[in-house]
């Protein structure tokens, strides 16, 4: 992990690192086992997306609070080509990389809040948050 709390995603082995680190912080945030599994799975999909589509990127993993509850927020950022058509990219089965096309849409279903900021040539930033259920 770098000093500012980011994990680099630059190779296959980093996907395993990201999953393990997200699991650790998800436990800290008080997520249930099922919610831990969901956010770790979403993290794996999003990290692989950064690797495949942008050649790599980074993720920050932080515990957040909104006054009532705690949660886990993941922010994936890359300097890749960006996503030209976000609506299509979020559609199940749409793929430009020969995969199943479940990464983005599936990840969105697995978390509580999901936000994508992307423009062609400007890279992509994806924020995904999962809240602990009281």
């Amino acid at each position, binding site marked *: 992990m770098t000093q500012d709390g980011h994990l680099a995603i630059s190779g*296959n*082995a980093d*996907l*395993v690192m990201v*999953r*393990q680190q997200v*699991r650790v912080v998800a436990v800290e945030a008080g997520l249930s*086992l*099922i919610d*831990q*599994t*969901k956010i*770790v*799975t979403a993290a*794996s*999909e999003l990290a*692989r997306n950064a690797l495949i589509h942008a050649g790599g990127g980074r993720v920050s993993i932080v515990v957040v609070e909104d006054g009532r509850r705690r949660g886990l927020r993941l922010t994936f950022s890359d300097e890749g080509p960006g996503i030209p058509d976000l609506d299509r990219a979020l559609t*199940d089965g749409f793929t430009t990389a020969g*995969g*199943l096309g*479940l*990464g983005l*849409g*599936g*990840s969105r*279903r*697995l978390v509580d809040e999901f936000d994508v900021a992307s423009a062609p040539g400007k890279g992509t930033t994806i924020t995904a948050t999962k809240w602990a259920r009281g």
Partner: protein
Amino acid sequence: MERVPILKLGDILIISIQIDLDDQSVLALQEDLADRVVSAGARGVIIDISAVEIIDSFIGRMFATIAGMCRMLDAETVVVGMRPAVAITLVELGLSLGGVRTALNLEKGVALLDHLGDRGTPR
């Protein structure tokens, strides 16, 4: 990259995944398994995932690929021991693993393969 061992028990191959799978290990396993199914003349393959904490779309697709590949090599595949949290997550992710047989545990997986073998013609 870590390699997943493939064990042989009679005419069944058993793979117990005990590591956090990276994509290269997944691809290596597919290739190793295809070779072993042929060289061992296996009629069944059991993949035990009771130690697997997450399955994402890449790993999930591996199970479907392995099942399809083994079927072409005249072997049936059963995935056993899926954790409840993994099952819930897979469905929400949108991955139904259609075409992949599952059983609750290794024992039931072996029984399922025996049953398929007795009937001669798998479903």
